[in-house]
């Protein structure tokens, strides 16, 4: 097991290096100059040159990459061009906001969707099944920002139960923190609920048709035992893959939701850094996202044998 983990982590190093090179090159190919964006339409040649020099943008691109890579290898991701903040703490701070919302949302969505999918498959072609499928399709089709705005309007403006903007860290004031993240979590849970329910249902339908389920029933096991003990584990394995993909995807930032709910998360940071051509921050964001993807996939691979005994590490 440990060998497998180390192997996988070692395999991620070339990926990270390649990504860093691509990110470095691509972002610099995009037209736009960070120094110019800082100075705006009032930029004269002298102040532009001085700002470029101060940001190290006057160096040849290869030199800039070597300097950056050397710093990254020693754990230093540099400083933001826009705000002069150290990039690594900035990323970790913003990632913690996104991660707290994403992890809770995906966990809640999975806890609701998997039993619902199983139940729907068990009652295939019944009214309940049609209702679950229709509901899941609806949730899958609703854009997250629209659902978010709808919830903001309902619970924030009309009912006035929850604040519509702002963020409070959990450590600062747990009650207030909760009030600020309830709506983003509910929005994300609902949006992901659709996809996971459909996958869980489809997997369960397939599993319930297999001979070993018929065999279990023939043995005289109760339906509950057949479903929870025999069908669930096997039906859950493909759903786990989907959950892993969703998690990796969302942990990379939920920029739209973070913008709607004014959350200081990683997605918003990434979008802002693109507009500001804040190269160090953007490079750091993408490295972090890649690393998180690798970790999530590794975690899914490690969990897979627990649900599908055919898989050995």
């Amino acid at each position: 097991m440990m060998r497998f983990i180390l192997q996988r982590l070692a395999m991620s190093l070339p990926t990270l290096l390649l990504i860093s090179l691509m990110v470095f090159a691509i972002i610099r190919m995009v037209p736009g100059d960070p120094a110019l964006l800082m100075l705006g339409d009032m930029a004269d040649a002298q102040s532009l040159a001085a700002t470029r020099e101060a940001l190290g943008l006057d160096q040849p691109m290869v030199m800039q990459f070597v300097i950056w890579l050397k710093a990254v290898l020693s754990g230093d991701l540099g400083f933001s061009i826009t705000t002069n903040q150290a990039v690594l703490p900035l990323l970790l701070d913003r990632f913690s906001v996104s991660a707290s919302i994403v992890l809770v949302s995906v966990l809640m969505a999975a806890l609701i969707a998997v039993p619902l999918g199983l139940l729907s498959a068990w009652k295939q072609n019944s009214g309940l099944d049609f209702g679950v499928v229709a509901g899941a399709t609806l949730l899958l089709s609703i854009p997250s920002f629209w659902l978010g705005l709808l919830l903001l309007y309902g619970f924030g403006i009309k009912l006035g139960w929850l604040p519509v903007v702002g963020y409070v860290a959990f450590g600062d004031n747990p009650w207030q923190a909760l009030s600020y993240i309830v709506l983003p979590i509910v929005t994300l849970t609902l949006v992901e609920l659709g996809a996971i329910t459909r996958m869980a249902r489809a997997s369960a339908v397939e599993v319930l048709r297999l001979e070993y389920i018929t065999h279990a029933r023939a043995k005289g096991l109760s339906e509950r035992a057949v479903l929870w003990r025999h069908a669930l584990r096997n039906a859950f394995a493909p759903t786990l893959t989907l959950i892993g993909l969703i998690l990796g995807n969302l942990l990379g930032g939920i920029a739209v939701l973070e913008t709607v709910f004014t959350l200081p998360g990683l997605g918003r940071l990434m979008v802002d850094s693109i507009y500001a051509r804040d190269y160090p921050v953007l490079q750091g964001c993408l490295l972090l996202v890649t690393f998180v993807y690798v970790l999530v996939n590794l975690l899914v691979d490690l969990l897979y044998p627990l649900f599908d005994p055919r898989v050995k590490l």
Partner: protein
Amino acid sequence: MNKAFLLAGGLSAVLTANAWADSTLTVALNADIRSTEPGVNRDTNSDAVILHLTEGLVAFREDASVGPLLAKDVQVSEDGLRYTFHLREGVKFQNGAPLTSAEVLWTWRRYLDPKTQWRCIGAFDGSGGTKVVDISAPDPLTVVFTLDKPSGLFLASTALPECGGSGIVHPDSVVADAWKAPIGTGPFKLGEWKPAQSIELLRFAGYTPREEAGPDGYTGNKSTKLDRIKLMVIPDPAAAKAALLSKNVDLLIDVTPLDANELAAVSGVKISSSGTMSISALLFQTRDPLLKDVRLREAIAYSLDTSQIVAALTDNRSKANASMVAVGSKYHQAVEDKGYGYDPVKARRLLAEAGYKGQPIKLLVNKRYPSIFDMGVFAQAMAKESGINLELETLEWGTQLERYQTGNFQMMAFPYSERLDPALSFDSVTGDKDKEPRKVWDNPQARQWLAEAMRESDPAKRQALFDQLHQQMIKDVPLIVMYNGNSISAHRDYVQGLRPWPVSKPRLWTVNLQAGRP
């Protein structure tokens, strides 16, 4: 009543209750500030915040003239080379230390050190014309600046918002050669800045206001009734509107005319607006093979009914202005009112004379500034009526800015940020294209007039120079100035005392909150 409902109501009251006192004003900012260092790593929001915390020797008044702020008075020597600032007595920094000429000297020496990377150093080190050759402090309340040559812009440059108003800060603002936080003399001091979330400003209890009866631009009596201001970073306009409607914020600044109309219909919400000195214009690349013919540029100008375009863009809040001299400026007189006028017949005649055969002309626009995009769309439609083929190309703002800086365009719809003196406005467009490709107007005579206007301090002589510049610009058509911008704010009705003015930045010390605020 249903218990669950009561519980939900009680819970929501706990969750959403503002833990703030009644005199806390909550304001939405569309983007975070870049830093708290005056005029260094800055943008318009950073300037707006800084100008609540620090004060300079002089500042802009409401009529865009310059008046004393930390200075009691300013005396200019007859040769125009020596500016003597007498400081007000009893002014304190936010750390309790008294303001003396030593701090003014320290601050200015730091600004003029290239290592500080002060945005405005070019206006004082000789590279932009004038050089401050000496700053001295003959006594604790007097500071003398000596220039190498007379300048009509010295005081105005000192007061510019983008220079942080050259705010005087206490040396403790810097620790171990690194900027820490501003310790200024403004009516507010910096509370907590949570990047990407909020900036808190706290009333400075030891603030010493000027003796005037009330505020006047960035100067005058700036005492405040607010205890605290919370500036919340809300980038999404829809979320900002929702925050205002739900009373999570009290004031939205920089609202679009469309949103203003929608919000004006909401009970308990009020709209205030005023014209600013920013300029929206259509720029020409006069070295373009097609557009180097002035007749074609004129034809485009005559094909546009700018009054109609501006009325539609601003919902009748601004009027068309063809001059670089802003409508709110005291130098905007009858001469500056004369533009091109709408004359499609003349436009067609000029096109025929120029031999224009409908070749496409690329007009660059962006969507970061919706009014700039809309201006391009209107211009395209109107020009088409006269047979001019404008093709819109929408660019991301960073890309457009680079094309502007390098002069790589045929036509461009562009927003110039506000310059509070006409000489600075003309300077933003006038220059040698070989050295500064972003300058759209390369006319040696105009450059000479502009240089004179920058040196001259006599208002009558400056007026004559601005008149000449305007008339020549109308003849050369290097750009079509469309209108000066509008600053629109939306606020709850308990927010009183907002005073919009030609600078599109809020002055929150003028605000007070009416009793009965929820």
